[in-house]
């Protein structure tokens, strides 16, 4: 048992009305838990068993081929959801401040333009996946999206903000209306945590 489900950093109903309690319970308690259980099963008895999750993803190409897909999908799922819970919070939203705000303005022109880009990336990801704000190895910010549970860490980038656009993330409350979910997601972004992630990625 290497990896364990991290407790949610707030109550299941803390993100209401934007993200409903039942969705949070199933998303954390079932989906995230299943990724961890399947990851642990895949790496059991291998040299990768004790490796921290994000190091495991950064070294995904060293993982033996017979378990690589399972590690990619379930390890990605574990890392992505762990970040996702942390960058949301009750009474959050608004806009970033400080160095992150300056970097967003410098990169995208304005916070509004960044918001449009992240929204478009989240809405246009066909099928299951994620939209991200990442820090490139040289320190530059970029908005990207990945399919399924692929993590930006697998290609050497550092995700500092991610929005889950698997249908399980929003279907109970929003059904087919992904754009409404994405718009409401901006009300729960924990910018203090994203700024901390940004600072850590600079080091």
């Amino acid at each position, binding site marked *: 048992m290497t990896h364990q489900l991290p407790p949610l950093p707030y109550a299941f109903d803390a993100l209401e009305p934007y993200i409903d309690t039942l969705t949070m319970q199933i998303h954390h308690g079932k989906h995230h838990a299943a990724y961890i259980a399947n990851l642990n099963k895949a790496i059991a008895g291998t040299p990768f068993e004790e490796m921290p999750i994000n190091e495991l993803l950064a070294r995904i190409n060293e993982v033996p081929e017979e378990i690589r897909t399972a590690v990619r999908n379930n390890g990605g799922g574990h890392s992505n959801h762990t970040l996702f819970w942390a960058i949301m919070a009750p009474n959050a939203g608004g806009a970033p401040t400080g160095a992150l705000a300056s970097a967003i303005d410098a990169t995208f022109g304005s916070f509004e333009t960044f918001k449009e880009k992240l929204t478009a990336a989240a809405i246009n990801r*066909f*099928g299951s996946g994620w939209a991200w704000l990442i820090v490139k190895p040289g320190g530059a910010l970029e908005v990207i999206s990945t399919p399924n549970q692929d993590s930006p860490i697998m290609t050497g980038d550092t995700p500092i903000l991610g929005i889950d656009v698997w249908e*399980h993330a929003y*279907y109970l409350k929003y*059904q*087919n209306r992904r754009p409404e979910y994405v718009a409401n997601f901006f009300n729960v972004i924990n910018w203090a945590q994203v700024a901390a992630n940004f600072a850590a990625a600079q080091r």
Partner: protein
Amino acid sequence: MAFELPPLPYPDTALEPAYSARTISFHHGKHHKAYVDNLNRLIAGTALEGKTLEEIIQLTVNDPGKAAIFNNAAQVWNHTFFWHSMKPGGGGQPSGPLAAQIVETFGSYEKFAEQFKAAAVGRFGSGWAWLVADGKALKIVTTPNAETPLTAGLRPLLTVDVWEHAYYLDYQNRRPDFVQAFLDQLVNWDFAAANWSK
């Protein structure tokens, strides 16, 4: 002639309780309809306007510049095929020549059901599981997102949608329960048998 959303082959309550009217209202009325509307918008005024759905799928597959057209066209086709793959009072076992071929290929109906369920549950992310004819042979395949066996020269006989929107309101994270219900209570073997005999 723009494409139109094909009506459901049964009332929206007909698959209750295994597949709820509420799920159908979104799945057919919103998702399937959006694919139709998007496709019409994307091909309007292009060389693809006036082609059949199958032609559009074959002409756009593997063309990164036409991914949106392919995705919507294939999803229109896949969903129409999916609605026909279910029926009120469905489930049970196939009969006739298809049943014999299933036994010959998989060993027994039970072994087929086991493999079909494993395929549908094992498709990571969004996609489809299919029973197809590959020439005279039967195969179980899965496809991601909008992809369809048509473009691999395979002949679909039956499909189950395993995008989360297909089952989330009724089954949430329990995809295996949905696929089991599909096999036990929903699957339209008459449709599969007719496709096999074509």
